[in-house]
């Protein structure tokens, strides 16, 4: 015994102190990350929740010949500036489609102008004092109020904040992701199956493997340039369409799916393969009937995470023209469309202050979908994962 008991216990104390310090530091790091997240969410919720409500006012609407010519004439002069012009301009077409309306007039809840909306929400507004008085009076009589904003979830983009909605961007995102999935999933899985189960281990497959890992780390804007050069300029796929966006994002998602699938395949123990070979299965039968089904949860998880990543992407989509003004909800993958993050980007640049809440509202919708996708990935993994 060269060390005394005191020395040893001092050393022990030091070691304990060290580990306590490390524990506090790492808890601090976690706390800081959590704090950032809380601040971010609080800010987004505070700014974005008002976007889910929209001012409506109850006014007398006159469906006359005159209002068919000049829609402004359909409402009384004192509230003319307070109803949405975007709603007024649809009147002539509505009367054309419903001729029985002509010559009638009735009280209706109609969409209010964006400035009325901002005023009722207590934000900055460009209404003058007279208009504010009228809105106050209407609100007192229960003829002006904030209602659930169906417009936001059912319409496309608009220059008028009261008419701007997230639906066309959401549809664009869905179609783009479907194309991405349809292209990258089969190609990615088959590539991984070949590399993992069939390919010999030689110089060529090693080079391919290194390249796939490299591709996964390439900045996404380069895939956009590739998409522009190949899909638009060479194959003539329509610009701004979900088809070209989906194909471009598929290029980006491919390496992610390949790597995830290879990891999943590798985690299936060799015993399974040996047993299947032992009863006389061919290599293809072994893969199809035994290895793939066992690896599927891992493959699905990887694919969903890859897709979620693709969904948040804007840089490559700017290059292929998907960051555009799209009020119509596109019906096919060759129509022009935009995607959720691009819509948020567009709204963030609008001069009109009412778009601040639209931007935050859009972010909330995007985050909700992302959380849902990632949660699905976690659930799939937990439910089907097998430990060996």
């Amino acid at each position: 015994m060269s060390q005394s008991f005191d020395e040893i216990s001092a050393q022990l104390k030091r070691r304990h102190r060290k580990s306590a310090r490390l524990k506090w530091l790492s808890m601090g790091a976690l706390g800081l990350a959590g704090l950032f997240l809380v601040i971010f969410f609080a800010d987004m919720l505070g700014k974005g929740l008002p976007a889910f409500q929209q001012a409506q006012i109850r006014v007398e609407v006159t469906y006359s010949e005159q209002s068919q010519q000049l829609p402004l004439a359909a409402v009384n002069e004192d509230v003319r500036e307070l109803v949405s012009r975007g709603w007024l301009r649809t009147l002539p077409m509505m009367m054309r489609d419903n001729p029985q309306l002509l010559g009638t007039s009735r009280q209706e809840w109609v969409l209010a102008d964006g400035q009325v909306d901002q005023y009722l929400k207590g934000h900055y507004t460009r209404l003058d004092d007279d208009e504010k008085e009228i809105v106050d009076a209407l609100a007192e009589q229960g003829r002006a109020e904030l209602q659930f904003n169906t417009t936001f979830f059912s319409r496309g983009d608009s220059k008028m904040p009261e008419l701007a909605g997230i639906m066309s961007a959401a549809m664009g995102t869905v179609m783009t992701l479907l194309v991405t999935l349809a292209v990258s999933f089969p190609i990615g899985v088959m590539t991984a199956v070949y590399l993992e189960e069939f390919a010999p281990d030689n110089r060529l497959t090693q080079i391919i493997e290194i390249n796939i890992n490299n591709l996964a780390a390439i900045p996404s804007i380069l895939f956009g340039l590739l998409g522009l050069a190949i899909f638009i300029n060479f194959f003539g796929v329509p610009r701004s369409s979900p088809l070209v966006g989906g194909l471009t994002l598929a290029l980006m998602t491919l390496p992610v799916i390949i790597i995830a699938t290879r990891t999943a395949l590798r985690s299936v123990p060799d015993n399974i393969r040996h047993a299947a070979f032992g009863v006389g299965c061919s290599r293809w039968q072994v893969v199809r009937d035994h290895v793939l089904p066992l690896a599927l949860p891992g493959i699905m998880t990887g694919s969903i995470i890859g897709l979620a990543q693709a969904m948040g992407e804007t840089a490559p989509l700017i290059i292929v023209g998907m960051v555009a003004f799209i009020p119509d909800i596109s019906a096919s993958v060759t129509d022009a469309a935009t995607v959720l993050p691009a819509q948020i980007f567009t709204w963030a640049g609008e001069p009109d202050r009412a778009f601040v809440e639209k931007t935050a509202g859009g972010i909330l919708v995007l985050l909700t979908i992302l959380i849902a996708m990632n949660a699905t990935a976690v659930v799939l993994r937990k439910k089907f994962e097998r430990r060996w």
Partner: protein
Amino acid sequence: MNRILKTTAIAAAVMSVAGVAQARDQIRIVGSSTVYPFASYVAEEFGATTDYPTPVIESTGSGGGLRLFCNGGGDDTPDITNASRRMKPSEFERCAENGVTDITEAFIGYDGIAFAQSNANEQMNVTREQIFLALAAQVPQNGELVDNPYTRWNEIDSSLPDREIAVYGPPTTSGTRDAFEELVMEAVSEDMEAYGGEGYTDIRADGAYIDAGENDNLIVQRLSENTDAFGIFGYSFLEENDDSLIGSSIDGVEPTPEAIGSGEYPVSRSLFFYLKNQHSDDVPSMYEYANMFMSEQMIGELGYLKGIGLIPAPEDLREEARNAVESQEQLELSDLQ
């Protein structure tokens, strides 16, 4: 397994859709981010009040838009490009080389560039020369060009406030920056002997000029945080934020719609769009869109676009521009020189 077969089938179906080339009834528009809010307003109105689909508008910047526009006359090139400056002769020549020869120019109105600050301060009266001296990379002193020594406004002129020079402005890709360089930097330096009569547009890179990105809203936000700083951005953003910002008067003229429209305010520019007449057979609706854009209810004194920041041109100029579009007047190289 079935899942994989199914997705392969979907992929094949998608690919076959792509193979079928489509005729186009939708107008395609690219170009300036300054004109973008006005163009998209008209496009939306066009989609909502006619039976045509809403035109697709991409904000690519004036230069980027003209590059796409001049790529050729094919169906896959844009029909219209917006510009916050006039087409350059070199761009016209490039268009002609690629077979885009029949172009109509539409002049829609003006936009002013504001030199603004937080309204916590007093309004500043500044001349273009003072702005130039604050922002140029090299300034003349005793007949020689030296690296810009000014760090505070009152070092340039004692009438200016005792505040550090800090200006948030757009990056070099922006049309606003182009216009600022042309209307302030070039205009001032051409009259200064030290630069030998040549326009000088180099902006200092020592931190006094802060590149704030393409998004003008960011500049506006930063001005309310940093009340000492100034910002350079389009007039519509000043109008929309008049509760927190105050525009400086330049050469003694306040930034008001009237002063910008009459050309009295020195930092104002004209806004345009260009029509590719070769597409008139494939995309006939582009003229209906253009005529709607040029109508009084859009670009007139009481037009909708005024409400979102466009500054209308005088009546005779509007009339002239409207006639040019209606008669599809062909743009000549000599018009641009």
